[in-house]
């Protein structure tokens, strides 16, 4: 069925800039209304708290912010940063769309890959970006993830991955569908080499990414409240004409159904990841 079910409103592009705008202390501080508790939260307070509202609601976060949050300062070395692909199918409007998104996000593609240390534990790391076409997977995202797992096999490193995705990128058609098989093959090789892969599923992780490398990790973590599923909730509602159960496709319900290892809020992610890496790296 439909693969790309979480299309964000266009205006979210603008707020997805590379770094936080410096907050002006004097003139009335900008605020953001929490979708959960409906309270207006000063932006500076949100930034200071990894974009988590005091009520616990986790706001969307761009890939660079996540990198800064979980890696040791100065430890991240980016790989395959310049990899791009034009418009494989000459899909109408895709070239222009890519140009706009690149401008607005400051990123070349929807995933950032590299090596890093998390509390001293070296690993390969990928972080998807919700502000780059909702982290959709096309040929570049698929290739970067694949290369990272291959690199991790060569160097015998664990992989930590943060997923956020609307699914396969439909503007790349079959080419994007095939990335599901390609990334799965690389994850399998990494797994067969006896190496650890931890995925952190963030809001939303859906479609072809859920049905490939997101769910293929040895240990599956998720952020509180994250939407995790294959088909989109709206599509399911329209197809089945039944109302959805409360909490459907939230991390909490996915955990209850047995498909996640743990839900970890941002404040605890670095510690949890470094501990898991330590447990598998034979360190102390």
């Amino acid at each position: 069925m439909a693969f790309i079910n979480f299309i964000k409103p266009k205006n979210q592009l603008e707020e997805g800039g590379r770094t936080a705008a410096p907050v002006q202390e004097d003139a009335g501080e900008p605020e953001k209304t929490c979708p959960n508790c409906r309270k207006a939260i000063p932006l500076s307070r949100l930034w200071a708290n990894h974009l988590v509202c005091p009520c616990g609601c986790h706001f969307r976060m761009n890939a660079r912010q996540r990198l800064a949050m979980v890696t040791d300062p100065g430890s991240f070395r980016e790989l395959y940063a310049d990899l791009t692909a034009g418009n494989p199918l000459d899909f109408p409007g895709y070239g222009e769309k890519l140009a706009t998104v690149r401008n607005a996000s400051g990123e070349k593609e929807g995933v950032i890959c590299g090596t890093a240390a998390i509390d001293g534990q070296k690993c390969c790391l990928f972080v998807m970006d919700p502000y780059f076409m909702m982290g959709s997977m096309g040929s570049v995202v698929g290739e970067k993830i694949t290369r990272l797992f291959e690199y991790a096999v060569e160097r015998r490193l664990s992989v930590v991955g943060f997923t956020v995705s609307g699914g396969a990128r439909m503007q790349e058609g079959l080419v994007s569908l095939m990335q599901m098989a390609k990334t799965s093959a690389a994850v399998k090789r990494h797994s067969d080499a006896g190496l650890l892969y931890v995925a952190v599923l963030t809001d939303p992780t859906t479609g072809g990414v859920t049905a490939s490398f997101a769910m293929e990790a040895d240990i599956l973590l998720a952020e509180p409240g994250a939407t995790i599923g294959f088909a989109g909730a709206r599509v399911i509602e329209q197809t089945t004409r039944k109302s959805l159960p409360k909490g459907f496709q939230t991390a909490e319900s996915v955990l209850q159904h047995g498909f996640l290892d743990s839900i970890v809020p941002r404040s605890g992610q670095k510690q949890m990841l470094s501990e898991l890496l330590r447990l598998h790296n034979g360190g102390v």
Partner: protein
Amino acid sequence: MSQTPYSIVKKARDNTRPTGLDYIHNLFQGFVELHGDRRFGDDAAIVGGIARLEGLPVTVIAIEKGRTAKERSFRNFGAPNPEGYRKALRLMKQAEKFGRPVICFIDTSGACCGVEAEERGQGLAIAENLMEMTTLCVPVISVLIGEGGSGGALALGVADRVWMLENAVYSVISPEGCASILWKDAAKAETAAASLKLTAQDAKDLGVIDEILSEENLGKQPFYQGLRSRLSRTLTELAGDEDLVGSRYARFRRMGAQFLQG
């Protein structure tokens, strides 16, 4: 007679086309159906079992849409649930254990879209098939006989050889779904069908499939005879590949590489 991509989509969906079970019964002898995923249930949208192909025991797995209204409802219109994919994987692992090649027939508009399918891990079921198929130690051939809808089709399509009937389609999303997301207008499906490059010729040009199968005599004995000997020949060829799993990795590793820059 000129065909548009969307007219091919309609042909691929036509319910007079042979369905999965037609292929099973016409290509193989002595089909023994094996049911159930040993986890939750038996999914009628995926039929699997053991049969002989010109004497050789093979594992056969097919998505079955059904033809009459009653059959279609029983088969869930060929939209598999997680237990269907898990049954398929169970049978593939069984084939690996006994050294039998695997032949899959794909015909689905997509994996079942529903609350229960989600709650039983549709995404994980597909992901596990993709992952496990990449290292299956026996030859795998997948044939797209009608609709190849997205991840739900790919879950049986990580094969050493992937073939498509000339009027089958293979796509990341239905043209209607694509049109309604991009242009908020399902009526633009015709444009979407052309843009998605979903025909057999497109798939071949993109390097996604290996061969296009002619539909001359479709559903008649000469058609099945031709396909049967092609399957036999190819299995013999694959049996000679000493690094089957490595070749399969390379096959999928290439996907999209021709478009990369930098």
